[in-house]
């Protein structure tokens, strides 16, 4: 998984952690519960506040000498770096503070907001990006088209999504304009989502990155940017050590006036519990993303505010389409009828999980708006019920019979197998237990096979599974544009298409209920990328979603909400109804808007 912002960052896989780090990891895990809440955090933050204030005394009038304390749970800062193109050990939480983004998607208004760009325009095969005039590196030098072009060219080496559509980049009419030439006319929504997605930042500082232009991709992917770090975001790099990243207010930032405090410290915290305790005890002012179950949220003091944002990601069921039983559409449909999605959501986290109202392959909140009038025709598969009768009749149609409480094929083999689930993702384990309990209660015969990180992905990549748990949306704002999830469920690049979904034409019942329709779902959805006619896009999306509803390349069960945390005891935080909270992440977005500031 390459895109940290959109990843499953809310649960640390201890098992995987131990696997990767071996003995010291186990010791660290064993020790972190005790050491994390011993007050060390507050002391060290106080200590470094002094340091940063001395360097920042020239800050604008009204700047209060205080530090906002957040946390990183990506690892020990001394081992991390801020080169986003080297995904290993990149600390996206720190990186997001240091570098401005092109644009952001607001989940509240469902609109894009420009950040480092003052304009973007789409015309035929040309995308023109205009950088803000006042966007500058913290050295005082302007961020220019040349910086961005350098970055885009390096991104071509690393195979970034942008280059799925782009053919070349060049400078526009001035040094603040970048022109992206596309291979063919593309849907602006797709380009926008690509540019505003997750962690894509304007980070191509030429003095540092220029040398990589002549090297191959591996060089840039292994470059750990730890020295001479210059960003263009609201904060500048000061120092890092085992305990924390120390950042200071960037006077050169275009909206620096909105920031009335001198420092931002990101403490190193290793697991969810340490972060939860940090919020509980007051050691942390903000936490970018942290999963906290209801019982813990209920115990947070009043000063802690939760901001929930759709992750457009969530628990689903992956079928191996090469399996002799689960490769059959009717069997998959029977599974869909048996699973009670509401119950899965309630068990795994009633506050943060959102059952998909229908099984369409489109993110839960976006289904109705995209499918319009056709929405009612879609098969619901019983969101909050186990539809045993329907499931049984489908299985009987497919030639199976129930004997001794278990569904069997004509040879007497039980219908089931091992159900793969990732070890250590605790809420997923609960969801898996619920799903398997429901399936077995109906008469399937599944056994849970809990696998650690590498083995888990490995089992899918090698198609060595019958059925299992897998995220059914690629995650992030882009998942709200159905092109991404519908295509993703068929190709599933994260597992190299290990679910063996057959390419080519598929025949499904017609949408109006009479006869059948044949379509090539992958080809059809891919056409959306180059369609600029909204009506045509909508029609294609509906057809492919209908195909997914009938064929079930994957079974989407629940979407989830990310939980982001702010505290308002020592900070003025914008009111809960302010739409600015809808941008990921509030702890990044609000300070530069002047919507999270130190109290006078």
């Amino acid at each position, binding site marked *: 998984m390459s895109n940290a912002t959109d990843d499953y960052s809310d649960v640390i*896989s*201890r*098992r995987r952690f*131990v*696997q990767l780090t*071996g*003995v010291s990891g*186990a010791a660290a*895990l*064993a020790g972190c519960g005790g050491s994390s809440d011993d007050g060390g955090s507050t002391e060290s933050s106080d200590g470094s506040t002094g340091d940063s204030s001395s360097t920042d005394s020239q800050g604008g009038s009204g700047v209060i000498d205080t530090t906002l304390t957040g946390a990183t749970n990506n690892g020990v800062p001394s081992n991390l770096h801020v080169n986003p193109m080297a995904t290993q050990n990149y600390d996206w939480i720190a990186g997001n503070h240091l570098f401005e983004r092109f644009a952001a998607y607001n989940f509240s208004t469902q609109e894009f907001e420009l950040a480092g760009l003052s304009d973007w325009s789409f015309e035929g095969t040309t995308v023109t990006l205009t950088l803000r005039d006042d966007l500058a590196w913290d050295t005082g030098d302007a961020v220019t088209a040349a910086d961005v072009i350098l970055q885009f060219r390096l991104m071509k080496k690393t195979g970034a999504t942008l280059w799925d559509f782009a053919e070349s980049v060049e400078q526009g009419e001035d040094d603040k304009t970048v022109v992206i030439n596309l291979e063919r006319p593309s849907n602006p929504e797709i380009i926008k989502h690509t540019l505003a997605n997750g962690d894509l930042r304007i980070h191509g500082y030429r003095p540092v990155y220029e040398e990589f232009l002549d090297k191959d991709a591996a060089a840039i992917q292994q470059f750990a940017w730890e020295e001479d770090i210059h960003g263009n975001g609201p904060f500048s790099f000061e120092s890092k050590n085992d305990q924390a990243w120390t950042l200071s207010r960037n006077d050169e930032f275009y909206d620096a006036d909105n920031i009335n405090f001198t420092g931002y410290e990101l403490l190193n915290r290793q697991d*969810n*519990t340490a972060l*939860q305790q940090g919020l*509980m005890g007051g050691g942390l002012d903000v936490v970018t993303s942290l999963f*906290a*179950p*209801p*019982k*813990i*949220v*209920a*115990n947070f003091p009043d000063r802690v505010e939760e901001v929930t944002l759709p992750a457009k990601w969530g628990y689903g069921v992956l079928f191996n389409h090469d399996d002799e039983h689960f490769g059959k559409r009717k069997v998959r449909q029977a599974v869909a009828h048996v699973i*009670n999605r509401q*119950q899965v959501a*309630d*068990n*795994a986290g009633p506050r943060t999980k959102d059952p998909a109202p229908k099984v369409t392959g489109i993110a839960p909140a976006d289904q109705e708006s995209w499918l319009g009038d056709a929405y009612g025709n879609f098969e619901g598969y019983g969101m909050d019920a186990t539809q045993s009768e329907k499931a049984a009749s489908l299985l009987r149609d497919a030639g199976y019979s129930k004997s001794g409480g278990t569904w069997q094929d004509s040879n007497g083999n039980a219908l089931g197998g091992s159900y793969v689930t990732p*070890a*250590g993702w*605790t809420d997923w*384990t*609960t969801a898996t*237990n*619920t799903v398997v*309990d*429901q399936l077995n*209660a109906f008469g399937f015969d599944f*056994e*849970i*096979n*809990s696998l*650690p990180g590498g083995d888990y992905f490995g089992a899918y990549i090698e198609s060595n599974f019958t059925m299992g748990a897998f995220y059914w949306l690629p995650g992030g704002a882009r998942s709200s544009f159905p092109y991404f999830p519908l295509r993703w469920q068929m190709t599933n690049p994260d597992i190299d298409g290990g679910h063996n979904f057959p390419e080519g034409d598929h025949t499904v019942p017609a949408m109006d209920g009479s006869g059948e329709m044949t379509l090539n779902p992958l080809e059809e959805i891919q056409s959306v990328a180059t369609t600029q006619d909204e009506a045509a896009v909508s029609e294609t999306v509906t057809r492919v979603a209908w195909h997914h509803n009938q064929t079930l390349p994957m079974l989407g069960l629940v979407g989830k909400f990310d939980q982001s945390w702010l505290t308002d005891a020592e900070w003025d935080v914008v009111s809960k109804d302010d739409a600015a909270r809808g941008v990921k992440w509030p702890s990044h977005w609000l300070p530069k808007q002047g919507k999270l500031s130190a109290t006078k």
Partner: protein
Amino acid sequence: MKHTESESVDWRSEGSSAPDLTTGERARELYEERIRTPFLVAWADWRTRLGALIIGGYLLVALVAVLGLWREPSTSQAPRYLMLFENMNYPLGTTASGTDLAALIIHSTPDILLMITAGAVWATGVAVAIGTLAGYKGGRVDRTLMSVSDLVMAIPGLPLVIILAVTLNPENPILLGIIINISYWAGLGRSLRSQVLTIRENDYVEASRTMGVSTPRIIVKDIIPNLMPYVTVNFVFAARYVMFASVGLYFLGVLPYSTQNWGVTLNFAYSGGALFSWSAAHWLLAPMVAIMGLSLGLILLGQGMDRVFNPRVRTRMAGESKSTATDDEDAGVTEVL
């Protein structure tokens, strides 16, 4: 273990010294010697009584699980977050996913008992074999076996177990018990060897040797019985270690969650916020009480069994001899626990 003069006579040989017994008499004598007397001796101590009752309780619970007398744990089988004794159908309450906690505890018990027994049998079995052989044979055998023990002792135990557990992903409780105690025998074997070194010099061992009794027979008949108190106590230690280590490893997420275990329950309770909220505390407490109870039962039983194997206390309590010791209550109790 202290060894006094009186201990140097093998108490097991007393009965068999009588000549010309019929089969019936022999059987009665065997029953008397091997079953009734040890039982009486053991039962005379409150620790054994309580320990046996507790362990018996766990065996009963395991039986309940095996015979299917209590429902299997399953998600959504009950309302979520029921408190302790709030609904008598679910006396221990329920978890965040509406799973009956009593069912979780009960259905984990058979595997835990199997696991700790397997681990303890493995650890003490290997230790006794290695320790007695090395101690009795001496020479090259001793040097080789002890070098191996030292080597195994030098490997850090927990990390080794973690690596093995992650690699093998064991779900079979017996295999799991053995893996957890994979290196436990080494230290125990070494201590047993030291014990054997003193015992082998005893007259009766010397006598057996001169009479040409085979080595295995000397080890089994003359040496091991004298080691039994030490072995029993360490058997209990090993069993407790397996339980604690497994719970810890499940809790850390090193062992596969697929298997039902008190450690898994603890982990879910912990990540579900049971540490911070009274309304979910039972979720954490139930497995903890189960773990502590079993541990207590094992300790008490271990303490009590010491009496059975300690000849001085045993004969006195069985009414076969009068002790001259004044401190009659605790004289025979090993204080290592």
